[in-house]
């Protein structure tokens, strides 16, 4: 029951090989069935609401998401995956791009697939740069506790 984890080979490759690219809003983790041992389960199994379909067929707004990326309730994510029987599968963590709590799909209107993805990746890069700057400050503060 081993899962094949494919290394990241670039965004163009990811766009081409992902049959479904969607923006998902994470609702709640799927409760595990009592007494059932799942082997090879993904790190995260969440109920999601699909808020925008960027590539692929529009199946249903309510679905599940399986991934090895850590997911948080209430957050929005861009996901590069494939859809199978009510479940979006995007195992490798690089297939999930966090978009924060507040996200409006209006910014994507009238743009091509490539432009939409570039815009979303730029948004994540900006957020990440801000976050990393704040974390540098936090790290320096924490290290103060261990300086004698």
């Amino acid at each position, binding site marked *: 029951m081993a899962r094949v984890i494919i290394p*990241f080979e*670039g*965004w163009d490759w990811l766009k081409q090989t992902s049959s479904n690219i969607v923006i998902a809003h994470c609702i709640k983790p799927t409760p595990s069935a009592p007494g059932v041992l799942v082997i090879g389960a993904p790190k995260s199994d969440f109920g999601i609401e699909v808020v925008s379909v960027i590539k692929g067929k529009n199946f249903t707004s309510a679905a599940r998401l399986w991934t090895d990326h850590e997911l*948080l*309730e*209430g957050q929005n994510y861009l996901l590069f995956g494939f859809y199978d029987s009510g479940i979006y599968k995007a195992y490798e963590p*690089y297939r999930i*791009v966090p978009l*924060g*709590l*507040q996200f409006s799909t209006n910014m994507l209107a009238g743009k091509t697939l490539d432009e939409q*993805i*570039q815009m979303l*990746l*730029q948004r*994540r*890069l900006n957020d*990440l*740069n*801000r*976050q*990393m700057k*704040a*974390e540098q400050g*936090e*790290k320096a*503060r*924490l*290290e*103060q*506790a*261990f300086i004698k």
Partner: protein
Amino acid sequence: MKLRAGVLKVSLLFMAGMAVAVPTQPFRDWSELTRTSKDIVIVHCVKTPETEIVEAGGVVREEGFGGIKSDVEISFALKGQMDSGKSEIVSQYPLRQSEYYLAFANQYESHGFYQAYEPYRIISLGQNFDTNVLSGKTLDEQIQTLLQKRLNDLNRQMKAEQEEKARLESAFKK
């Protein structure tokens, strides 16, 4: 009656102004923070608040009460009164559902919630946290243990973020 309504309106406006203009203190050191915080507690966030603090030009726009109010459960008190069960905490730090946090706070019974405005007052402890690691330790040892845990987690997280950043930047290289 009209006068009373006017006085009430002015009072509410004054209170709203007071709520936003919360004086915040810069971080000095952990010893002082430990000494001056009336309540040092471990909380579990029950629900991610729907509001976010937006930074505009380096200024934090506050959402009221000097920060965002989050629903939490008190898991453990390192210092101060142990009020177990549900409570609320107000901070500029964005708390996330299911995460545990160490909070250097002050609880004011008249307000009914904990206040920890400055982001440095909140230390993330991740989604899995066992308070057993604190048993038999002094307050200073407990805090050192928790800060070390956060530092280890943060180092791991920053390494992963460096990889993610490099991956994202590759999208903009021609």
